[in-house]
């Protein structure tokens, strides 16, 4: 079905995907409350469509951007790709292992040292132990943590956390890398280093999807961009075009 020599090979296909969140009308937090409500037959569910009939194809080696206002479904789309959410309708087809860049602190433990955390984090990303040991020095070097690598994580600053997280996720040249607004942490020089690493991925084996509110980074890094609006894809195309269109649609943009 798929010719691996063709440069424009699809690695992600999203076909008619919808995600429905079923939220209780009034939030029920305890079992006691739930039992009472059942007896009173007073449970109502409100449905909320986070994604509505989304179709996208993403090719190998691309850096694909997703823009849109808050609540447009950007993060939900990433969750569908990372297998965290199973779509309510439609189909997601993915070739390769998906590596999301985790939020600050997730997948780390404050009492363990940087080195121990690289091991923990690596196994969470699905890498075998031996492979992590092989990449250990490379990760430590990229994270610029120096002697701190053997101190417990609770002594780290948030910038150091971010550096360790980015280094641990990207040193492997993952098949598919997901970045959800994460390049905004860390200082300027480290951000440039991250962007350089991502550009190095371009047209290689790593496909990246990034969600960002920073139009600068999107224009800098992405070839193609999708604009999400209230759960539907409003436009897909070359980064410059879509960003321009998206900016025009912002309230106050024309004034």
């Amino acid at each position, binding site marked *: 079905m798929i010719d691996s020599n063709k440069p424009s090979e699809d690695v992600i296909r999203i076909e008619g995907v919808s995600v429905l969140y*079923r939220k209780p009308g009034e939030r029920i*937090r305890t079992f006691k409350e739930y039992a009472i409500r059942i007896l009173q037959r007073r449970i109502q569910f409100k449905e909320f469509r986070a994604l509505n009939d989304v179709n996208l194809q993403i090719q190998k080696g691309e850096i694909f951007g997703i823009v849109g206002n808050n609540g447009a479904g950007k993060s939900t789309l990433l969750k569908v790709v*990372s297998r965290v959410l199973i779509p309510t309708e439609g189909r997601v087809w*993915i070739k390769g292992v998906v590596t999301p860049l985790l939020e600050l602190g997730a997948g780390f433990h404050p009492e363990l040292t940087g080195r121990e955390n690289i*091991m923990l984090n690596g*196994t969470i990303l699905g890498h075998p132990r031996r492979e992590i040991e092989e990449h250990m020095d490379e990760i430590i070097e990229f994270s610029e943590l120096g002697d701190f690598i053997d101190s417990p994580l609770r002594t780290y600053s948030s910038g150091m956390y971010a550096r360790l997280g980015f280094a641990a996720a990207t040193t492997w040249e993952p098949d598919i890398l997901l970045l959800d607004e994460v390049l905004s942490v860390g200082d300027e020089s480290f951000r440039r280093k991250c962007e350089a690493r991502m550009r190095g991925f371009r047209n290689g084996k790593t496909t990246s999807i990034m969600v960002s509110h920073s139009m600068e980074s999107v224009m800098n890094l992405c070839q193609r961009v999708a604009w999400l609006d209230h759960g539907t894809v409003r436009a897909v195309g070359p980064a410059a075009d879509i960003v321009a269109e998206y900016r025009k649609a912002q309230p106050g943009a024309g004034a």
Partner: protein
Amino acid sequence: MKTSEEFIYDSARRGPVALEELRGIFRYRDLIFQLIRKDIVARYKRSVLGVAWTMLQPLGMMVILSVVFSTLFSQVKGYPAYILSGLIAWTFFSQATSAMMTQIVWGGALLRQIYVPRTSFAVSSIGTGLTNLGISFIPLVLIVLIIGLPLRWSILFVPVSMLLLGAFALGVGLIISTMSIYFPDVADMYNLVLTGWMYLTPIVYPETLIPEAYRYWFFHLNPMYYYVKIFRAPIFEGVLPDGDILIVATLISVTTLIIGWLFFSKRSDEFAYHL
């Protein structure tokens, strides 16, 4: 990383989730090991006594309980070892099942962002519990020797008892941690259940305390009774467990584990919406 290239996920073509989880646990076995390591290392890193706590805790409990109850139950020969042999089984069960609920919360931050087998956190909690149970064996053997009970070969049976109790605890833990994802107050209710359950099980008192008329059903309807028996026989009595007791314990373990695994797996696709 050649193999990962061939990995294909298709949301329209998924097998049964329970099997997917089972395969996932095997594929992520290094993660399970790291999670166990994290639990053990993180617990002891900031304490001076370190691993010694695992041994001191049941010992301390045993001392307190034997001082409190020894006048009441003086007819039991080697009473401290009687308590300790039941107590370590109970402590393992209650700690491992409670830990599963806390672990799924720690893991929840991850489960909202990345795919890992969702049973990993439960399986690793059992691993941590079994490790601690193994360590708490050292003081137990010492007590047995100090109070002059004979140490017999039957003690080599204990790993089998550990495995059976581990399977039961995993099954129970999977069920209650699924419920606690939907309703956080299940954790509080479970603590209360545990306290009551402990006193229904002959851990601090001899079985003869219960009037003979009700004794049979009182004990035989309580799953923990069988596990306490298969721990106490090889350690305290120095014999292999009774065949009937062992068969019932095995049946309970297998059934509970299968039910728990299916129940957890069936719900696990929804976890990301709730955590």
